[in-house]
């Protein structure tokens, strides 16, 4: 399985191993980690929750989109759920392609799409409270009821 949601710590090497192929000239690996400070506010830990069955489908969709856009790409993504402490690994994305430029671009595409369409949420726990991120401020709206494809640089 190249696309997984995991309650256990992610073995980074095992994600990389899934995209090893003889045709590849490059493998890029993105490791998303839990940051302590966000705009000066100190995070104690995070809870990640996923709509697991749908999240796996959406990760598979991202893999399919990448294969359509970048010829010869192989993709593997594992996202963690549960309680994560500062510096813990939340997500690992590995992409292999025949040439390095594609591997970098496709990997960047994967993380941006995760942040748009994969049903995973994080709850921040601070010294003075807690909050689900992504909704309460209502900075993100979906006028058509679902996310639309966006350019990476937007």
């Amino acid at each position: 399985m190249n696309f997984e949601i995991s309650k256990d710590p992610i073995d980074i090497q095992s994600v990389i191993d899934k995209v090893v192929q003889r045709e590849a000239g490059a493998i890029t690996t993105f490791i998303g980690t839990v940051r302590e400070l966000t705009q000066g506010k100190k995070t104690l830990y995070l809870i990640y929750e996923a709509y697991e069955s749908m999240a796996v489908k959406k990760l598979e969709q991202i893999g399919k989109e990448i294969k359509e856009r970048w010829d010869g790409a192989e993709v593997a993504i594992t996202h963690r759920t549960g309680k994560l402490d500062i510096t813990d690994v939340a997500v690992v994305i590995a992409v292999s392609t025949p040439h390095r430029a594609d591997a970098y671009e496709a990997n960047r595409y994967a993380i941006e799409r995760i942040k748009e369409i994969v049903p995973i949420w994080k709850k921040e726990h601070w010294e003075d409270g807690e909050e689900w991120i992504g909704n309460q401020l209502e900075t993100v709206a979906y006028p058509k009821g679902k996310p639309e494809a966006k350019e990476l640089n937007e």
Partner: protein
Amino acid sequence: MNKIIFFAHLRDRVGEESVTKDAGGKTIAELKQLLSEEYALKLDSVMAALNEEFASDDEVIKDGDTVAFIPPVSGG
């Protein structure tokens, strides 16, 4: 009957992971309206999924469909 699943702050508000409703024949928008009133939820910026695929507000729910309400995501 239909299983309605909530996530993140919606789950906290409703106090349940899921509820069962007879939503067959209703649109997503109509179900949103119903739940907004029953649980005092604000669902304007919340997406819906029908059987694990994103669905527009005007899609009609069939008996047996699973509906999930998906606040803006924050994975990664």
